[in-house]
């Protein structure tokens, strides 16, 4: 495991030109995230957190400023180079899961591998996908389609997909936004377990209690970082789950 910072933003600006008006979504953000951190990026809508997330996720480029990811400056890369960075170094978890419909959990997880530079045999693809599915607790559900899985299970498939290429950073955009409270805690449990294994996680959320599962919170407002602090009273997902009445326990499918 390498040490040191994995993400470094230096005075990042992002300006959108819509018609005659320039929208300054991000107005000079500098941020360092160390390997193994679990950061919650918070803020109201319009605070610039989604724009910052897109930049962190190499889906978008900053208008000015530098973004160093894993010791490489990625702020000036072109479309295809960014796609390769996303494939090798980043894993995405979306609010609405974004799984391919009518496609088994295994094939969904295999997707990033298919766009990788290494050519894997079907058996290798399957082996890797099944391993990460087991990691998120979906052993035995490899052949289920998204429509046959609960929301929490779908999000776990998405997390498995994010993990399959051994990324430097997992980026989660409102991962619990479409889930009920118990399932949300279950997802946080997975994130905490992954983080304990040393995986860096950056999560966008607007829910303060969800942010409390992270180790560090970064709060944005009007395109700037308002607060940046370590969580003192961190929630432990396993403990929280025990508090929730067992009648909520998920019925086996």
């Amino acid at each position, binding site marked *: 495991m390498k040490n040191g910072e994995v993400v470094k933003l230096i005075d990042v600006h992002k300006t959108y030109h819509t018609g005659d008006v320039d929208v300054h979504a991000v107005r000079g953000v500098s941020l360092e995230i160390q390997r193994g951190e679990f950061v919650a990026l918070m803020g109201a809508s319009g605070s610039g957190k989604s724009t910052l997330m897109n930049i962190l996720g190499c*889906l978008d480029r900053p208008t000015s400023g530098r973004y160093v990811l894993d010791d490489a400056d990625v702020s000036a890369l072109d479309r*295809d180079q960014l796609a390769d960075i996303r494939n090798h170094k980043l894993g995405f978890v979306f609010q609405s899961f974004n799984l391919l419909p009518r496609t088994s959990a295994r094939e969904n997880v295999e*997707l990033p591998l298919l766009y990788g530079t290494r050519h894997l045999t079907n058996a290798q693809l399957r082996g890797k996908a099944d391993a990460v599915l087991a990691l998120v607790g979906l052993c035995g559900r490899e052949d289920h389609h998204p429509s046959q899985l609960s929301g929490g299970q779908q999000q776990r498939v998405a997390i498995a997909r994010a993990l399959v290429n051994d990324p430097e950073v997992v980026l989660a955009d409102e991962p619990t936004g479409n889930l009920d409270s118990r399932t949300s805690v279950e997802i946080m449990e997975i994130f905490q377990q992954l983080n304990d294994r040393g995986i860096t996680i950056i999560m966008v959320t607007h829910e303060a209690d969800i942010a409390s599962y992270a180790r560090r919170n970064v709060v944005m407002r009007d395109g700037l970082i308002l607060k940046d602090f370590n969580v003192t009273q961190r929630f432990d997902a396993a403990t929280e789950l025990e508090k929730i009445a067992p009648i909520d326990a998920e019925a086996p499918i």
Partner: protein
Amino acid sequence: MKVGSTINIALRALRRNKMRSVLTALGIIIGVAAVIAMVGIGNGAKAQVEAQIASLGENIIQVLSGSTTSSGIRSGWGGAGTLKIEDAAAIEREIPGVIAVSEEVFSNMQVAAGNQNWLTRVLGESADYLDIRQWPLADGAPFTPQDVRSANKVCVIGQTAASKIFGDQQSAVGQILRIKNVPFTITGVLVRKGFSMMGVDQDDVVIMPYTSAMKRVIGGAVLRSINVQVSDANQMNAAQQQIISLLRQRHNIRPGQDDDFTVRTQQDIADTATATTKVMTVLLGSIAGVSLVVGGIGIMNIMLVSVTERTREIGTRMAVGAHGSDILTQFLIEAVTLSSVGGVIGIIFGIGASQILSSYAHWPTLISLSSIIVAFMFSAAVGIFFGFYPARKAAALDPIEALRYE
């Protein structure tokens, strides 16, 4: 990014939407099947015409008696009766390369045997005629040059005429056939030759020495036509020209005057007939081609809908590392797979349809390898052509926009 993976991705995407894939390919299937079947019918007709022309015999030149013009009314071929027996003899004697000549007279006549009678075509020919026409006997023997010289009362009979008069049970050979109350002995029965390209049943015929026909049944001293066989295909044109000048000279036709006869080669007949069938093939093929293009537009339509419908999917793929070119290739491969698989199925259906047409409707069909290859290449090209626009549209999507698309 390997091509193998993209193919894998594209096939997975098609498999996810089986019904839609099948329906999209259906347009191409029908288009290709139609092209294969229609071109098959056209080629079959062409081959049949060619076979019929070949059945006239090899290297044949027909000299037809000319038309008369009387008070501005022109009769048809043979009306004037300008050809004499001596003309035929002169052709045989003077034109180089001529190996056989048959003087021909013709009439439709009532023939009778026992209590049966039948209206059939009566041909008077020389003994060479059956060789010229390459028309062997199924039974018995042909009449001989001696029969021709002596104008003997003998004849050979075609299968249709034989079965109408004598039934299918007994052999016609050795039977007596009365034509205008003249008894003719049947020496042989011809093999079946089928219908000519004009639709005439060539087997409904009685063939006798032309001398016998002229002297005993038809009468007159002029020939309807002269069939000339030349030894070598290369000599056909020369022989044709020489026959024309020989006959002009014999008939005392001055320069500037029209011929009172017509000389046509087998090639002339073949050219006319194949031109007709070629038009038919092109017509049928282009109608079928239109349906293939419509099938291609169907693919473009579905692919465009699919790009819109799968915007989120495309965004997801881009988020996990797909390049624009990967998306482009994926959609192109999807389109080409649909069209070429449709093409293969269409070829199978087209061949099947041709088989059904030839076995139930008795239409001659001929599927050539080249038409299969062309149809397949064309269907694949349709996939590339009509798949490109939607694929490019998909590849140009912005990943952030695509991920946000509802």
